[in-house]
């Protein structure tokens, strides 16, 4: 039984059985209340019928890209659950969940791009080649100025506003089944911290 948490856009939490069945799911597209809703959401899914924290075998965490403040809430929470239950943390790039859902839904084929807003007039883009059980990453997540982002006809772009936790768990199940490694548990920040080193200004 896997718990999956993604806070790269809104907040999405799900518990999925090892055969892929969805046991519980909660989500909101609110992009400003991650730290609030993570508590009740976890409480609800871990107390859903047929679910218990003690039965979890892994915690899947979406590592973004996404706005940093919210993204960190989910990763910190996933870390904490993994430590609390003594189970592995399974970090997955959040775009991978979108890509899998697009391929499974028959919406994407061939090469395609998953696009999310990265603020400051930039978008985060990951390019995939469709395939199952998992789409292949052709270009890992990177930032592109929105104005320069001209969709390639051969690579249709799918811009999404929400990342769901269920496909995130499905990506993890597929990786586990195939014996594939997981990402590092760090957020995909894609930008250095925004700080400028200014000399003290004159006051007189």
């Amino acid at each position, binding site marked *: 039984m896997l718990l999956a948490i993604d806070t790269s856009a809104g907040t999405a939490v799900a518990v999925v059985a090892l055969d892929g069945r969805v046991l519980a799911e909660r989500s909101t597209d609110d992009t400003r209340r991650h730290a609030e809703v993570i*508590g009740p959401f976890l409480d609800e899914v*871990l107390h859903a019928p047929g679910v218990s924290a003690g039965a979890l075998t892994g915690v899947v965490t979406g590592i973004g890209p996404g706005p940093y403040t919210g993204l960190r809430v989910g990763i910190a929470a996933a870390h*904490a*659950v993994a430590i609390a239950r003594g189970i592995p943390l399974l970090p997955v790039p959040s775009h991978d969940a979108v890509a899998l859902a697009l391929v499974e839904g028959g919406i994407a084929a061939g090469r395609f791009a998953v696009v999310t807003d990265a603020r400051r007039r930039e978008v985060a883009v990951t390019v995939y080649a469709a395939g199952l059980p998992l789409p292949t990453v052709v270009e890992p997540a990177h930032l592109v100025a929105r104005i320069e982002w001209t969709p390639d006809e051969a690579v249709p772009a799918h811009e999404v506003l929400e990342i769901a936790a269920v496909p995130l768990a499905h990506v993890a199940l597929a990786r586990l089944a195939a014996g594939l490694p997981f990402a590092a548990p*760090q957020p995909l920040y894609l930008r250095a911290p925004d700080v400028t*080193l200014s000399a003290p200004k004159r006051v*007189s």
Partner: protein
Amino acid sequence: MSAQPLVLGIESSCDETGIGIVRGTTLLANVISSSMEQHARFGGVVPEVAARAHLEALEPALREALAVAGVTLDELDAIAVTSGPGLAGALMVGVGAAKALAVALDKPFYAVNHLVGHVGADVLRTEGEPAIELPTIALLVSGGHTSLLHVRDLTSDVELLGETIDDAAGEAFDKVARLLGLPYPGGPHIDRAAADGNPTAVRFPRGLTLPKDLERHRYDFSFSGLKTAVARHVEKLRDAGEPVPIADIAASFREAVADVLTAKAIAACTDLGVPRLLLGGGVAANARVRALAAERCAAAGVELRIPPISLCTDNGAMIAALAAQLIMAGHAPSPLDVSADSTLPVTQIQA
């Protein structure tokens, strides 16, 4: 729950990731991972850098604290966290982790006030030392806050008498240090430079101490004018091609800060008839602030308490200690949907 609850506290309001474990009033572990060095070249805490560091430090600090305390997560009676005040993005890392720990372990969750936590630290004295007596005045001074509190009951009755209306005192130390070409963090470096200086060399202004200011801001602080006065003084010397006497300026600046901090704290003790003063926050490590506080407390017949420095700077043990006090006083856990509140008022001891 046992009479002496075993509580794990998480603190992430500024640049220290703190994990503390206490059993009632007994300190079992106080692990602090600081991102101070990463802020050094910027001359002050950079919120995004601090928040990134919290996420990195969380797991190792948690594991270390459990190992030091010699307890397992299952044994804990409650999980506590700072929910404010502090840097929003930094607070959220701790809040997210604490909620998840509490839910995954099925333990009660206590979200508490950082400032009251500083006062709560004083209950963690080593065996045999007298316990904190209330009511007390508390002067909490760090890079993030400068607050004067009247604490009548740790778990139910804390009043904010005054606070800084601009910069925190610790922030003023950092900014003046930069001006003088001293490294970050400013406090200890200014302390060192000031040791050989003359504190009466320059009479820098004491913010909000004039009679007209005292009417409205009797217990409030202001350090922005002081910082500007130091900058102006240094510029004038440099413009005239004269050498800048670092030691004298550091000593004079430090004296102005220590003077105004302790004068207002003692005034609160005297005005309110509270013969006790507690110092907390990183600035409690400042040699001159300590010395002047001791001198003035003795003269005013006020008992001075300063917790050990490792409990004065931001830490998780003080958060765990305050939560343990709340539990022992019968307070119910916090709801799981509390937010990280960067401006949580001090009257709200528990969120």
